[in-house]
């Protein structure tokens, strides 16, 4: 059998143009009162959203010799979160935790990334809350 050699051509395909997908308003009947503002959120409670890949938002931050652990994108009462964290992690002191309520960032002195991730996995009982 003779081998048929085919020339391979370079084919340029047009990229798919970006089309904005409009937001669909959900039905009014599907909305519960607890989904709306003034449901008590932010009053002695808070929320730790996982990343889109399902990880806890805990990051190691290295600024030359200054090493801190950063928890990002927190929502709600961060002062309460700080006191809960102090209770949960032994050896942690209040002066080692700095809280930025406006941006939702919490910085902890030292490399606590693995410990905090473990604490979050243990302490955040209602896993369903953390699903997007």
């Amino acid at each position, binding site marked *: 059998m003779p081998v048929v050699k085919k020339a391979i051509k370079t084919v340029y395909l047009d990229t798919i143009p970006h089309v*904005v*997908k*409009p*937001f*669909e*308003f*959900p*039905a*009014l009947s599907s*909305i519960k009162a*607890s*989904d*709306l*503002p*003034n*449901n*008590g*959120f*932010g009053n*002695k*409670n*808070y*929320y*730790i959203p996982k990343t889109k890949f399902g990880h806890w938002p805990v990051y190691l931050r290295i600024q030359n010799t200054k*090493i801190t652990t950063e928890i990002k994108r927190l*929502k*709600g*009462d961060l002062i*309460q*979160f700080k006191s*809960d964290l102090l*209770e*949960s*992690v*032994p*050896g942690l002191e209040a002066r080692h935790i700095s809280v930025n309520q*406006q*941006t939702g960032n919490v910085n902890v*002195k*030292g*490399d*606590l990334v*693995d*410990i905090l991730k*473990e*604490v*979050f996995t*243990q*302490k*955040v*009982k*209602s896993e369903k*809350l*953390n699903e997007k």
Partner: protein
Amino acid sequence: MFVRSIRRLATEASTSTLPSATTFNIAKPPQYTLASLRSFPSLEPHSFIPLPASFFDAPLRRDFLWSAVVFEADASRVGSGSVPTKGDKPFSNRKIQPQKGSGRARVGDRNSPIRDNGLKAFGRKAPVDWSTNLPRKIYNRAIQTAFSQQYRDGKLFIIGAGEQSEATTGKLSETDSTIVDFKYGYEEATKQFVECHKMEKLHLLFVTDDLRENLLNSTEYIADKADVVPKEALQVRDILKANRIFIEAPALQWLIGKHSN
């Protein structure tokens, strides 16, 4: 007796077991917020719609707004400023004085930028591109913050036809419509609209889904007080500048789809 002290890294974490008594006070943040759907130009509310809380209940972050407004202002610069340089040769090429014998320093022609003649050594030449970069997610947060602030202040009016509303069941008033447009393109329509809702001194923003000719023609006489913007051209500074925003529901849906992170 010696007490042996063990030096540890300041950043070393303690590795003791965790007490398991307390749990975190986790609660679910609000997902939606409600807004009225209205008809135009009466602004009569006839239905509620749920809006995403991330877009309309975002906290006021002035840093995002500042970044976005600077980004837009930079991008809108024409960059026509042009500075005369040596290369423009505004003067003669004649040597001002002989090379030797004058007792003064050596000089060439009058086109040198070190002479007092208004020329710059490295002047910018038009067109200058002053546009800057801003991460898309930061710009999206700015749009969300601006909309949230206007919504909280009660300055956002959403025009559209909702489910089971008067608009869809055919009970809508004859003079009303579910799009941001007047029946006729005369000044009088805008005059009555502004007077009826007591908005004489306010800056109005109309965000439309499509081209609305009657609205454009009718608002032309107060062009400095009223902006008519199609949804694609809406900017953060338009939203912030307005005292009242009238936006069509499909345009809003498109904007939410585009500027959600």
